[in-house]
């Protein structure tokens, strides 16, 4: 208890008994509460907090570039699949044994439509099961499978182009008809296919990234309408005798993802495939966006992933 205002009452002031001392304790108060503050500050703050910030959803088109960030006007994509050379004869596995074109061009280039079950009639007639088969590029925000987010995908559908025809403009037999795709710039190569050639992503994310370069990661899947299978693809070959371990698949140099860098290059939005050590051509990988000759078309080659990859 705190003593305040101590007063003395001398006896001389109390002349008669029964003197009364009035101690006025009056609490006259004005009702005051927080309503004004609530109205002026609290609500305003809460309103602001309740309104979503403006997020810039503007997307821009990214043009493909080579390793030097020089724009490329076309891109070739090759696919390779396992085939069963040995007709399921014991002791060979039932559904694969070798890449079809392993012995041609040192393993580069494309496999053939017969590898995925297409017949000449399919190709000649452009049957739906061939034409509706497509290659899908899936893009993620990181190469850590347990925590990455799927961003978007690009689909590339079957092309029966000049590579699939002979000099008389006649479709090649399925055993000689390569599974490849040509993608080209819509302005500079107007007769080529453009779908899948560009990427579209948020300008804001790239502009605010370190060095205005945003790294995303890509996987590839071939969706085969002939047999309904989705086949995973790597930009490196799977060695059936010595498949890579699971630990080799992910991480900065993993095989699972192909790094793609989106960049604002002085106002021109570009992207490039940035293969890891095992994914680039010089080390046997499929990423070859800087061909040595000017007339060569930048290429990316994909190989089917061995089914037992990562088991050991």
């Amino acid at each position: 208890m705190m003593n305040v205002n101590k007063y003395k009452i001398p006896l001389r002031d109390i002349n008669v008994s029964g003197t009364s001392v009035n101690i006025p304790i009056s609490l006259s108060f004005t009702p005051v509460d927080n309503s004004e503050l609530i109205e002026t500050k609290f609500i305003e703050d809460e309103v602001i907090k309740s309104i979503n910030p403006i997020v810039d959803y503007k997307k821009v088109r990214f043009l493909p570039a080579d390793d030097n960030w020089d724009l490329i006007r076309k891109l070739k994509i090759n696919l390779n699949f396992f085939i069963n050379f040995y007709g399921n004869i014991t002791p060979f596995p039932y559904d694969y044994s070798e890449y079809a074109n392993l012995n041609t061009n040192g393993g580069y280039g494309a496999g053939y439509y017969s590898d995925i079950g297409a017949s000449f009639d399919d190709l000649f007639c452009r049957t739906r099961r061939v034409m509706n088969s497509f290659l899908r590029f899936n893009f993620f925000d990181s190469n850590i499978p347990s925590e990455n987010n799927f961003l978007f995908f690009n689909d590339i559908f079957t092309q029966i182009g000049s590579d699939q025809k002979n000099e008389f403009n006649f479709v090649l037999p399925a055993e000689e008809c390569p599974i490849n795709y040509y993608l080209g710039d819509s302005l500079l190569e107007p007769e080529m296919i453009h779908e899948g050639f560009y990427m579209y992503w948020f300008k804001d994310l790239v502009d605010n990234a370190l060095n205005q370069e945003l790294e995303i990661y890509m996987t590839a899947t071939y969706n085969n309408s002939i047999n309904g299978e989705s086949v995973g693809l790597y930009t490196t070959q799977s060695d059936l005798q010595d498949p890579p371990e699971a630990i080799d698949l992910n991480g900065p140099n993993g095989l699972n993802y192909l790094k793609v860098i989106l960049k604002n290059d002085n106002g021109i939005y570009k992207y490039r495939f940035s293969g890891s050590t095992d994914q680039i051509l010089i080390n046997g990988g499929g990423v070859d966006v800087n061909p040595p000759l000017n007339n060569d078309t930048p290429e990316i080659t994909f190989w089917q992933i061995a089914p037992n990859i990562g088991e050991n």
Partner: protein
Amino acid sequence: MNKGYKILLNKEKSVLATNINEEININIENTTQPLPLGDVEHTVNAFEQFEKERAESTKYRFYGTINPMISNMLYNDNVFIINGDQGVVGKKILSDNIFLNDGWYGTFFENNDTSEEGSPYVNKFNDNSSTLCAFTPFDPGYERLNILDTDGIPNYMLKLTYPYSTKDITLIENNGGITLADGIPVIEQIKISINDRAYTGFKTPINHGLDVGDKIKMYNFQDPTGNLVLSARTISVFSLGNQVNDDKERIFVVDIDPTEIVADVGISTIKRTVIGVESEYYVRSFSALTTNEIDYDLYPAAFGKNYFNDQVAAFYFKNDIDIKNIRDNLGRPLSEIYLTIIKQGEELDPTNYNHMYWINQQSGLTPPLNTQFWTSIAGGYITEKVKNGNYNIRAFSDNAFPQNYYTGIDIGATTYDADIVEYNSNTLLEKKLEDVYHRINTVYRENLLSTPNTPISGSNLTEGYIYMPHKKMQIREYSDFIEEGDTINTVGIPDYSTSKYSASTQSLATGPIEPIPLSKVSRQFKWRDLLDIGFIDSNGFGVDYPFESGAHYLNIDTRFYLQRQDPPCKVEYKTKVTSYSKSNFPPDFIGVLSSPTFYQSQITNSSVLGQSSLGSDWFDIITSPNYAGGLKIEMVIATIKFSGIYKLGDRYTPGGCIDFSIINQKTIDDEC
């Protein structure tokens, strides 16, 4: 409430007791309880929040499509350029092999052409279309004229521009120093008869912008009778158009007897007046908000083929345009932004065989013309044909007319002379009178006499292309209502307001756009408010476009029409009788056949030649071993001559205004 407590002195309690000092603690304990406050609810209105953010945002994003109306009707020469064993040569295409395909002049490949470089047959990638019968336009063809360009060198530059200043020009050459600021000049006086009463019509070189009933001030007209007192009064516009009500935008009629007034061409001018306030006339200059082709992305529009099979181009500008504190030529916030399309020049590339041909042809020209494909751009207006008229874009290169035009126009420029407008400080509105046009031609055509090819009539082909470079995008609209206020008591008078009583001496506002502060000095202003985005008033004024991600999205779907400078509307069918000997037949005759204006020929002495069993066809005659060349071949050669309004050299192709029914037409079918 009073509570009485008695405290007895000690002596009152006992006789032995003495009074001592006592302390009495009086506890004043207070407990508090908050006053109950009722439930507080506040509704956040998403629409209001959206409107608030939209009103506050000054960021714009521009995107759209350009539908081109382009063709090569002014081609350089009817040659097909081949890079063959003989080097780069131009294979002359005979007139009967010149075809018009979707508005483009060119020829069809023949089988023996397909092995030559430059043929579309040399196409490795996924070309599922037949390349036989492929049509190839003459130069300048698709790759030099289309909005979408396949050779990597943009044919046009897109920019965003806005009106930022004004300038004065002299529309009609005169000795009186009369300029556009003095009003719209009159170039012709016309007698108009209405209900047996004589009125006077006046023709202006540009659109006058008048309506019936408008008041005009007329300057520098002769008043022979002295009754008109034009300097002291305004005249009412009685009607528009000539005697048959045509040409309403260029002719106005006043109720003045034609005998009582005389107009001096180029000296006499008119100005519209609104309640005693005369309009101002000036040229607006546009300033660029963007710099170069990096600012935008251009690509083929989905399903974008127009009626003439031209590819529609889509575009978007990558960066936001923030118009905060940007003022227009009247010191106001921007209410309009223009999509500006500028034709890009082209340096001829000696490593490109298609360019090499023209480098060879233009080798006799002085630098830098010899290495340029396009002439520099000139700017002007589509004006009336008047002898002393400046800026007549259709008369460019016709030396019978003054050759004064806007120059220095190129893709690197940051400012562009643009439209002619009228502004009246009473209505506070600008009215566009004329759009500016740009004119280009190829260096080869413009200087044909200096090339190895001799033109038909010994003149350069100086008809070029013209196009309208600026396409308006209305980003804000001004209110239909004029506000007025006094600086003493009106809060929020915008600083672009016009002084009510001293507008003519008022200087334009500059710097950040802010309201005029209240002051103790009374100054009266008037202004038009900018309508909120999304608000359309009862008269239909207002703009509404998407607002997303903190920015306004403005779409423009426009046409780009590359027109002829002076489309020839007159056609003459000319015949000429000539005779050939074997020495100059067919070389001379081939030259006639390859002329684009050749129509047909006929041998008139076939009966004589027939006696020698040479046949009646010229090819049979000259290839016949019996033809020794002694007999001359008499021929009538028919050509078609096209001519326009201005003298711009030969015309190879007719304008769209010609009735083609007099000419035989060949139908192009699938069998070529």
